[in-house]
């Protein structure tokens, strides 16, 4: 759990879909200690424009080989610079940072819900869940359109059921991930946490205490996380979400990445980025 600053060798940095890059890093220092949901704080360029590091979640972890993979979308100056870094060069990274997902004992039925780039950390989580003896993993992947649907193959290879939802309907169902989540949950409810989620009948369901075997894990924009919290609440499903906030230090020193929780302002980089959705104060 010791944080380190290190020079990580870039093994792969390639565009896997327009604007989406996968980067593999050899991190001698700490790859073995990284947990799904944690992030690296990355110096994208050399000069002071951009100035700050960029937080990027770990996407896949091969602890034994000392390799960590990232999946990132080119957004502004920082991620643009990252995308131009070439294989064989070294990236200044600090990590592993933050608290990852916590999978409580007894959960065996996992629903992962990703909006946009939210898929990135959920693959690492699914990799971990896949090692469990008893498990069923459903992933709901939401995106604007077919062009930004990524990681479907990764989830399927792990043995997860992947449900795709796009806003424009260009791939999978048309609509929002949150509507799909509602259907999936209801489906679960009827079938008493049965693993098959093929049909989403609109049968009337009773909202009630939910089976503790179910764990919901979300990553995506704030508005999506808020909706997920709202949907999950009546069912009392334990739901964790990974949050994003502008970061300075990334290590808990500057109180820059505050998020409002029931306990007051907490730090996304330190107490998070994974929070229990029930703890967040939405506004």
């Amino acid at each position, binding site marked *: 759990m010791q944080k380190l600053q290190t020079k990580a060798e870039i093994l792969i940095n390639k565009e896997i879909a327009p604007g989406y890059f996968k980067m593999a890093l050899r991190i001698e220092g700490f790859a073995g200690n990284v947990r799904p949901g944690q992030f690296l704080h990355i110096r994208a360029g050399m000069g002071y424009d951009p100035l700050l590091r960029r937080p990027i979640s770990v996407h896949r972890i091969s602890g034994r080989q000392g390799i960590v993979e990232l999946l990132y979308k080119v957004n502004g100056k920082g991620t643009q610079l990252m995308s131009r870094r070439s294989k064989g060069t070294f990236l200044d990274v600090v990590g592993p940072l933050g608290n990852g997902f916590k999978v409580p004992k007894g959960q065996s039925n996992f629903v992962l819900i990703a909006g946009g780039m939210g898929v990135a950390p959920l693959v690492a989580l699914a990799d971990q869940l896949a090692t469990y003896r008893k498990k069923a993993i459903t992933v709901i992947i939401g995106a604007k359109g077919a062009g930004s649907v990524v990681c479907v193959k990764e989830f399927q290879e792990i043995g997860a059921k992947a449900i795709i939802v796009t806003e424009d309907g260009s791939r999978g169902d048309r609509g929002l991930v949150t509507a799909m989540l509602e259907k999936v949950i209801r489906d679960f409810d009827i079938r008493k946490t049965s693993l098959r989620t093929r049909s989403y009948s609109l049968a009337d369901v009773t909202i009630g205490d939910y089976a503790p075997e179910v764990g919901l894990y979300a990553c995506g924009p704030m508005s999506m996380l808020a909706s997920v919290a709202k949907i999950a609440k009546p069912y009392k499903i334990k739901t964790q979400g990974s949050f994003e906030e502008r970061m300075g230090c990334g290590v808990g*020193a500057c109180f820059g990445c505050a998020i409002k929780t029931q306990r007051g302002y907490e730090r996304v980089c330190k107490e998070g980025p994974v929070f229990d959705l029930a703890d967040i104060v939405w506004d």
Partner: protein
Amino acid sequence: MKKINTERALEINIGGLKLANPVMTASGTFGYTQECGELIDAAGLGAIVTKSITLEPSQGNPPPRLWETTAGLLNAIGIQNEGLDDFINTKLPFLKSVGARVVVSIAGRCQQDYKMLARALNNTTVDAIEVNISCPNIKHKSASLLFAQDPDSTSYIIRSVKKQTNKPVIAKLSPNVTDIGLIARAAEKAGADALSMINTLIGMDVDIARARPRLGNVTGGLSGPAIKPIALAMIWQAYHCVKIPIIGIGGIMSTEDAVAFFLCGASAVQIGTANFVDPAAAGNIIRGLRLYLKNRNMKNIKELIGQLKL
């Protein structure tokens, strides 16, 4: 070539605060060491300046609290901290246990706050008190200006703190003033043992898509390389106005930057935003300064202070 005792080349006395080297981490950028401790060797620093503490716990400003500008950082943290008691009971013992020299930064809304903070801290193991009268992110009772924007308020606060403590007292000044010399002299006359400058410059930025400020607090404080030339000019001016030592702050990223501050009159430096960009910065600067002096056959960092040739 004379033989130089490089071990002691960086030793410096800042108004009674004796340090093994003149490089500190700036308030608010290093937490209380628990956070950065794994990345930075706190005991190797000249000192760490704590995040400003207030009498009572303070929850800070609504997010977003940070915004990156070109070569700069806007922050509006609002001094989120757990208050004086927690500092004395938890933070300070930890800092001391890792071998750090500790300058505690104190902030308040009125003279009474500063007075009580200083009194309570006088009996602790802190090595010095930095009086933050220049934080652009907290509102004061009654006044629209920061204490450090007014020579009388500066004097009043510093005098009150001095009366409560025999620790070295450092007055932290704001660059948002018409005449930094005026404020520097006011602080000196009030008994400050040293000045630290500059705090951040008031700034803001706009999210044009939503026509909203980028910071929850609307305005914030600008730090980072963008402000370095401003800090250097202010220190150079203050250096010619006061006799007490000046701790230079503002956009220091490298040894070269630090040397520039010494040449302009700083007796020590604080590293702020650079800690975020490169946690190794402060350590690198300490090593860099040692080497710089050695290469120039200088006995002590003091030989650099204010030595800019015109």
